[in-house]
């Protein structure tokens, strides 16, 4: 146990123990611990195995920035132990090691496989033989995976949701600058949200002795009215939308202004053995001490390029860690921290760095010396090697928002060069690292953001200007840094540039040798920066290596493109709640009660059948059937020019339709192709009731609206699709059933085929259309959707004595096929004209009115179509698949296809529709259909299979 005495500002609650298991072993932790701190406190030093070489990896950053501590928590893989709070009873397991974390068989890859696994080896090795790829893929995934997702849905069930949050100002980052920005903007009246990835606002202050200051700053921001989100990393910047992940919630923050105070990311140093457990960033070591009271080691060596490392050394001494030596790459470091270390008797080696880390399974010593080695190296024992390669501005989100960076040679980092409008940067990411400067820059940015929204007054503007001037005058940057070399030392052991993907400095060298000599190409080839850290730890080292290999400057090498997500995020969080928008008719509940099998039909849920499609279809012929057709599109077209409007949209003539009469119509595109069909009933001189296909309702409404916006016609259009229920009562007993529920005279004389009448049906005011999609005498009854169940129930009750049965979509498809009524989209495609679809009669080229598609249809009329839609019968009884090929009489290829086919119990044979060569579109012609390789001889039919003359329909 390496738990320290109480530390000021520690996050743990020593009175509240928490137990969890790690690889089945019980671990005692304290409330406030992370999995990482708790495990470290009980002596665990290896947390995971690396991606490719299965090397041991230990805590490095303790801030969720690196990939070294990924574990599986309660079945969820890829969880960072260093930031995951402990919970009572949680099950934590290691990842990517088998059979155990301490003994991993795949470690052989590291011991003997190195020469055989250069970058891109899998591209070169596993491409032949191709048939083995599925096997390779399994093996590779198992060997190099990042954990496994539970297969069982129940195990993966996790409630997540979106929360849309509009704001005036979004501040990303909850350190000193972020809190100051949030407070400043909120005090000026802005609606402010602050998103911080840490468990509490304060950023570095929390681990560096500024807990009280952080608390006060957070309270100030809250009092001002800012909403502070903790444990809430921003995932990306998408044209003003910033998704922020907080536990099981994805905040979709849409703010008018964005202030980024994302700070810097402490960089590792590159030297042989830099991935050994026990090599830790200075910030990581300090967090362990101050937040979790965990002693990170007993004897430490510190290698740094800036004051961060010196401050860490002092903190370690304060925690009782022996600091054997501090190697500062700067030749002239003379900061107060350096002086304090000397006063405490710590050996401070200037112009020196770490050249190699040594040890088996854990750091046991380090070689220190001048960069590149000068023959005066010194080997020192230690169990903790604290490194700091300086801070690289965390500009990724800013770049996604449109900011530009440029290389700052003095600091050795890519710094902000320009910001887009509405985006502000403050704090260390903008070069203001010292506390006072960070807060001032935050306050200025917050105020400027608010001012740009018209908030504040002359005084607040004057204060912001003064603050801005002070920032530009003062020495606000960090104290001097030394730019570390690409690699310190050259001693054989692996030197990792990318810890996520196990890419070494040598791999970068090889990739350049192979011609991948730009940073973007190298990224794709070696996968550097593509792992869980998203370049936090490896982008700058990779750029330095690339520059050294190619002889370019770092500016010339440039950075890789910053892409979201900036933080690894579970897919479930992005998915949100699993609700699928589904339309249901007002009778849907009754269908369920009747045992309907329900299917998707466009965006509707509809009954496929009620368990007996064959019997349901026969009932329509023998007695009567009732089908819910509420899904049909329904439009009211009203106005003095309604007839002309429809004449312009349909190729047939509708303005001469008499009130109370119905006409079938197809809608054609301007290319003369069929895009939808339906019926049009004239209600009165100025009103038409138009139905469309179920799936075409929305498109037809838009099509009508689009043309109406262009044509100066006095017409109004109303979509009543969802407002009206509709059922089709069809069959030889339909008339008798109608007589029981309505006073309307349904005799063929009074209510003829293609008549439309208004009447009450079971008390509901209805529009009754006498049409016959299924071939029998039929009444399509349209009425307010709210009466859906009422009318349905009344009809079923009235028809009970007549053998009335409900029928679903499948029987309907068979029945309409018997009549050769087309289904647009199934029997037609994007090239089908009314001529090809055997409906030349519907095109009225002799009407005066120009109509959509006229020009194309005039040409189509002059040139007979190459193929035609016909019916067919199949004597051998096999039902071909829809889409089966129609073959030419001789030779290869395909000359048509089957669009619909069913066995008709009524007719006792297989029937269908198909596109065939126009020359074969005659009764009795034979065509060959290929169905799954079997050749079928079909006989062409050009008239409906059932009631070819329409006598039943009109009776």
């Amino acid at each position, binding site marked *: 146990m390496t738990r320290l005495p109480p530390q000021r500002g520690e996050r743990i609650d020593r009175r509240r123990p928490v137990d969890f298991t790690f690889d089945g072993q019980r671990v005692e932790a304290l409330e406030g611990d992370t999995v990482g701190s708790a495990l470290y406190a009980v002596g665990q030093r290896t947390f995971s195995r690396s991606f490719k070489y299965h090397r041991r990896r230990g805590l490095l950053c303790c801030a969720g920035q690196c990939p070294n501590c990924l574990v599986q928590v309660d079945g969820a893989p890829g969880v960072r132990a260093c930031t995951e709070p402990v919970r009572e009873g949680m099950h934590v397991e290691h990842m990517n090691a088998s059979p155990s974390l301490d003994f991993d068989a795949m470690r052989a890859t590291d011991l003997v496989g190195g020469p055989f696994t250069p970058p891109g080896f899998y591209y070169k090795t596993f491409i032949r033989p191709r048939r083995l790829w599925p096997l390779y893929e399994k093996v590779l995934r198992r060997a190099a995976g990042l954990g496994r997702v539970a297969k069982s849905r129940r195990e993966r069930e996790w409630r997540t949701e979106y929360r849309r949050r509009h704001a005036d100002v979004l501040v990303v980052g909850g350190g000193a600058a972020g809190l100051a920005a949030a407070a400043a903007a909120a005090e000026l009246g802005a609606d402010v949200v602050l998103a911080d990835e840490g468990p509490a606002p304060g950023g570095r202050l929390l681990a560096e002795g500024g807990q009280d200051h952080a608390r006060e700053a957070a309270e100030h921001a809250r009092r001002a009215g800012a909403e502070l989100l903790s444990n809430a990393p921003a995932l990306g910047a998408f044209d003003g939308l910033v998704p922020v992940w907080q536990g099981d919630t994805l905040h979709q923050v849409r703010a008018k202004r964005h202030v980024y105070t994302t700070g810097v990311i402490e960089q590792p140093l590159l030297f042989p053995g830099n991935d050994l457990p026990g090599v830790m960033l200075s910030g990581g070591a300090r967090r362990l001490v101050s937040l979790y009271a965990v002693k990170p080691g007993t004897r430490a060596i510190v290698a740094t390029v800036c004051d961060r490392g010196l401050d860490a050394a002092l903190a370690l001494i304060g925690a009782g860690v022996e600091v054997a030596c501090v190697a500062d790459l700067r030749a002239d470091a003379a900061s107060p921290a350096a002086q304090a270390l000397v006063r405490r008797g710590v050996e401070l080696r200037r112009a020196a760095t770490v050249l190699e880390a040594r040890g088996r399974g854990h750091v046991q010593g380090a070689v220190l010396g001048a960069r590149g080695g000068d023959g005066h190296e010194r080997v020192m024992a230690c169990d903790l090697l604290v490194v700091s390669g300086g801070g690289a501005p965390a500009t990724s989100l800013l770049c996604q928002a449109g900011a530009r960076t440029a290389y700052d040679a003095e600091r050795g980092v890519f710094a902000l060069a320009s910001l887009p409008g509405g985006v502000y940067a403050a704090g260390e990411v903008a070069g203001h690292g010292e506390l006072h400067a960070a807060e001032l820059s935050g306050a200025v940015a917050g105020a400027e953001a608010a001012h740009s929204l018209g908030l504040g007054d002359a005084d607040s503007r004057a204060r912001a200007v003064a603050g801005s001037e002070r920032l530009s005058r003062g020495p606000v940057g960090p104290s001097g840094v030394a730019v570390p070399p690409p690699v310190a030392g050259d001693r054989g052991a692996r030197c990792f540039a990318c810890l996520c993907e196990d890419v070494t400095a040598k791999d970068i060298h090889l990739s350049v040798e192979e011609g991948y000599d730009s940073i973007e190409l190298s990224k794709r080839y070696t996968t550097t920066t593509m792992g869980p850290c998203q370049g936090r730890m490896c982008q700058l080292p990779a750029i330095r290596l690339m520059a050294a290999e190619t002889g370019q400057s770092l500016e010339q090498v440039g950075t890789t493109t910053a892409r979201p997500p900036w933080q690894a995020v579970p897919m479930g969080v992005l998915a949100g709640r699993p609700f699928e928008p589904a*339309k249901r008719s007002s009778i849907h509940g009754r269908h369920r009660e009747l045992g309907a099998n329900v299917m998707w039909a466009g965006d509707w849920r509809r009954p496929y059948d009620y368990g007996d499609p064959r019997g349901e279809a026969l009932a329509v012929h023998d007695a009567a059937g009732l089908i819910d057709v509420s899904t049909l599109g329904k439009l009211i077209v009203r106005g003095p020019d309604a007839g002309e409007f429809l004449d312009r949209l349909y190729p047939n003539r509708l303005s001469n339709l008499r009130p109370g009469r119905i006409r079938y119509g197809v809608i054609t595109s301007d290319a003369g192709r069929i895009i939808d069909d339906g019926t049009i009933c004239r209600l009165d001189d100025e009103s038409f009731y138009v139905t469309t296909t179920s799936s075409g309702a929305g498109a037809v409404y838009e099509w009508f609206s689009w043309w109406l916006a262009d044509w100066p016609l006095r017409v109004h259009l109303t979509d009543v699709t969802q407002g009206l229920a509709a059922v089709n009562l069809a069959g030889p007993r339909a008339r008798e059933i109608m007589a029981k529920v309505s006073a309307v005279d349904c005799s063929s004389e009074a209510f003829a085929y293609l008549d439309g009448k208004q009447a009450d049906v079971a008390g509901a005011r209805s529009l009754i259309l006498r049409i016959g999609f299924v071939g029998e005498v039929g009444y399509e009854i349209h009425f307010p959707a709210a009466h859906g169940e009422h009318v349905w129930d009344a009809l079923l009750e009235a028809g009970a004595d007549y053998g009335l049965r409900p029928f679903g979509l499948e029987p309907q498809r068979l029945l309409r096929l018997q009549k050769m009524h087309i289904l647009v989209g199934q029997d037609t495609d994007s090239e089908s004209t009314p001529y090809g679809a055997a409906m030349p009669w519907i095109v009225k080229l002799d009407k005066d009115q120009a109509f959509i598609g006229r020009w194309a249809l005039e040409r189509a009329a002059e040139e007979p179509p190459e193929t035609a839609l016909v019916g067919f019968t199949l004597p051998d009884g096999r039902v071909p698949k829809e889409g089966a090929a129609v073959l030419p009489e001789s030779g290869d290829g395909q000359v048509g296809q089957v669009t619909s086919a069913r066995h008709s119990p009524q007719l006792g044979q297989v029937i269908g529709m198909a596109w065939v060569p126009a020359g074969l579109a005659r009764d009795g012609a034979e065509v060959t259909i290929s169905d799954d390789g079997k050749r079928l001889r079909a006989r062409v039919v050009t008239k409906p299979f059932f009631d070819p003359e329409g006598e039943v329909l009109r009776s």
Partner: protein
Amino acid sequence: MSLDFLVPSTAAVARSPMEREALRARARLETRDGWTVAVSFDEPEAERRACNETVAFADLSWLTKIELQAGAADLAAIVASCTGGGRLELGGAIRVGGAWWCPYTAERAVVLCEPGAAARVRDRIQEAAGVAGGLASAVDVTTAHGALAILGPLSRELFARFTAIDLRPQLTPVGGFRPGSLARVPGAILREAPDRYLMLFGAALGRYVWTVVSDAAERLGGRPVGADALEPFEERVPEAASHA
């Protein structure tokens, strides 16, 4: 022929598209104005608490909805005539005589009112349209839309779970009317009072919308409430409220 077949009849039972969901949540139904209405869920205290402390939702699909179309000038004249000089501006609705006048565009609006007031509103529209003289159309679309009242201090948090429409008071004050995407389907939100909203959506999507709203409300400690639970809040809906 008229368009009477669009209007629910009192001679037949009219049901909300969410009635079955309400029944599953143990609603008590009563017939009012020809509609079966979820009047309560037999937990008055819990319903009152949800309305006052968290978030509550109530099915108001039975509200009459009349779609009014006319040229911009004619529509303005009709609205002015029917509302005693009221003027519609996009983004805001006005309430006069218990009816909300909500503009979708300068040429299209929907009027929401109690079923009992529907005939009077329709007559006034017809009368005003006649005076305006231009082409005007009033179509009853009551059954084309489901309607849910959302009320309580967490109303906006509830909406945040399924819509990106900005309902902050500075953008959607009382009387604000915001058509847009609700739970990924077309709809509209009317802010009737500081903590009370009415959302409209396609009637065929009723079950889906109920599921989404119910799920989100439950997460926030809210619940469905009956129409009776809204009565104490009716007085908080101001007359002549207007975004403008």
